């Protein structure tokens, strides 16, 4: 049943599609990744022989995380990815970003899709100030762009609302403050295709309102926003389209209201 629903929505889309500009095309994407088992760590001699023999280490298992997903995303869309835990949502995002190889099929994209994942470049021992610069550089902004947007980033994060926290090391921040600063840095750059993985669950109500407005802005100015979330409410409010994945298979693709309804019916039923 889900299959027919998918087909019908994509075929109605196709008539209108010709005036729209595609930004991401996923064509029968399969993602398989290897998991190193616990047996991997052996003694020094085992490690040595592995290095020289180039045999695969024992205990490697393959996980087929995404199974033949196809869709076309257009400029100006905000697409929510929903599905239960382990259904392959984050893996699909990584494949779109070109950070995870596809086993078969292809992902075509406009510009460089970026994952909102600047946190990895930030250092807890450095001040918020230095981290804004470091994060911006890691995302490929120039020093000048960072200087221009520095104040916006700090204001947006609201870090300085309760005193001069931006000049303190990030390890002194509360988890909410840290998450807010990370989102602010990541959202400071204009992306062609922006992918957000569970970032909006953090922060207080005021910050969540601001970030939704920022996502709206990015959509309007740049292109396409992907949002992975377990909060169906967030997807309904922020996205106009939703893709529902279940154990790596695309169950449904269509307007976010419809897809969220079907997903909720599915989760409450089973």
């Amino acid at each position, binding site marked *: 049943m889900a299959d027919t629903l998918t087909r019908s929505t994509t075929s109605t889309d196709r008539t209108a599609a010709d005036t729209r500009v*595609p930004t991401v*095309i996923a064509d029968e994407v399969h993602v398989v990744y290897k998991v190193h088992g616990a047996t991997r760590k052996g003694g020094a001699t085992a*490690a040595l022989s592995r*290095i020289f023999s180039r045999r695969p280490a024992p205990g490697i298992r393959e996980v087929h995380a995404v199974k033949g997903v196809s869709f076309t995303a257009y400029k100006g869309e905000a697409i929510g990815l929903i599905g239960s835990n382990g259904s392959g949502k984050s893996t699909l995002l990584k494949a779109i970003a070109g950070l*995870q190889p596809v086993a078969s099929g292809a992902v075509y994209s406009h510009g460089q899709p*970026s994952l909102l994942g600047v946190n990895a470049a930030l250092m807890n021992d450095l001040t918020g100030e230095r981290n804004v610069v470091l994060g911006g550089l890691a995302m490929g902004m120039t020093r000048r762009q960072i200087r221009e947007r520095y104040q916006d980033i700090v204001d947006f994060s609201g870090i300085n609302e309760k005193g001069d926290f931006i000049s303190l090391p990030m390890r002194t921040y509360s988890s909410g403050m840290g998450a807010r600063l990370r989102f602010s840095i990541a959202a400071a750059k204009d992306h062609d295709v922006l992918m957000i993985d569970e970032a909006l669950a953090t922060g207080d109500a005021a910050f969540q309102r601001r970030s939704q407005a920022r996502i709206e802005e990015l959509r309007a100015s740049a292109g396409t926003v992907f949002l992975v979330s377990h909060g169906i409410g967030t997807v309904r409010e922020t996205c106009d389209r939703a893709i529902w994945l279940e154990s790596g298979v695309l169950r449904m693709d269509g307007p976010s209201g419809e897809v969220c309804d079907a997903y909720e019916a599915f989760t409450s039923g089973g």
Partner: protein
Amino acid sequence: MTVTTVTAPQSPAELAAAHGLTVSGARPSLPRYLAELWGRRHFVTAYAGARMQATYSTARLGQVWHLMTPLLNASVYYFIFGVVMNASHHVPDYVPFLITGVFVWDFIGSSVNAGTRAVHGNLGLVRALHFPRASLPISSVVQLFQQLLVTMGALVVLLLAFGQTPGPAWLLALPALFLMAVFCAGCALVMARVGSKNPDVSQLMPFVLRTWMYSSGVMWSIDSVLRTDHLPHWVTLLLKTNPAAVYIDLMRFALIDSFKAASLPHHVWPIAIGWALLAGVGGFVYFWKAEEEYGRG
């Protein structure tokens, strides 16, 4: 405005081609890769500086440890090799000799070590953001080079304290430092690729590095110790032309008055340049060949 045909249903590949979409995550060509890397130079230096600053940020003495650690290291070696084992017996100006060796080796050894972990230890970053991956090992070496410059400052003070007279020969340290940096960057790039495929290599590196250190004459003089032994000539030659020994001896030659050119192997500058070119160019190409594979699997 691109006009697409409505009648024929397009395949995804055709649709992608019609709108100029490209395959995500493909490896750029070598010149393009170099250009991308150059575009990220500020990231490379900022990341190196940030890590340098973060290293001792929780220590009470803070940045002073950048200086204290190599000095303490050198004094341990002085005690063991200089006093207990009497390696200083044949070497005039043993303390400057030892300190120069230890500081320079620190840079070479840590570059190789840091290179091994550069990609594997930053998987989070590699999996989250797009940038030329060579930025990571190169930024590690930049960080260590900054560290080396700090210790070189201390070295100059120590050399003066031990009665060395500064002269024009000291300027020879600059090209030596430069060649060494290129060599180390190349080594770090090679090890970064090896370490990303085989994380176990980082467990073996301490042993490899220790062997390399002891055979490169860091705290003893290859020349004066092996002269008395009945080793074949090619063993001595091999030890003396290994890159670590070449760069260490060049620095000693530049900075220490009593370290004469006779202690250097023949054609030492061409050898130093050759090692730098081989490691630098070879390492870069070797690393780039696997660019699209880092952080995967």
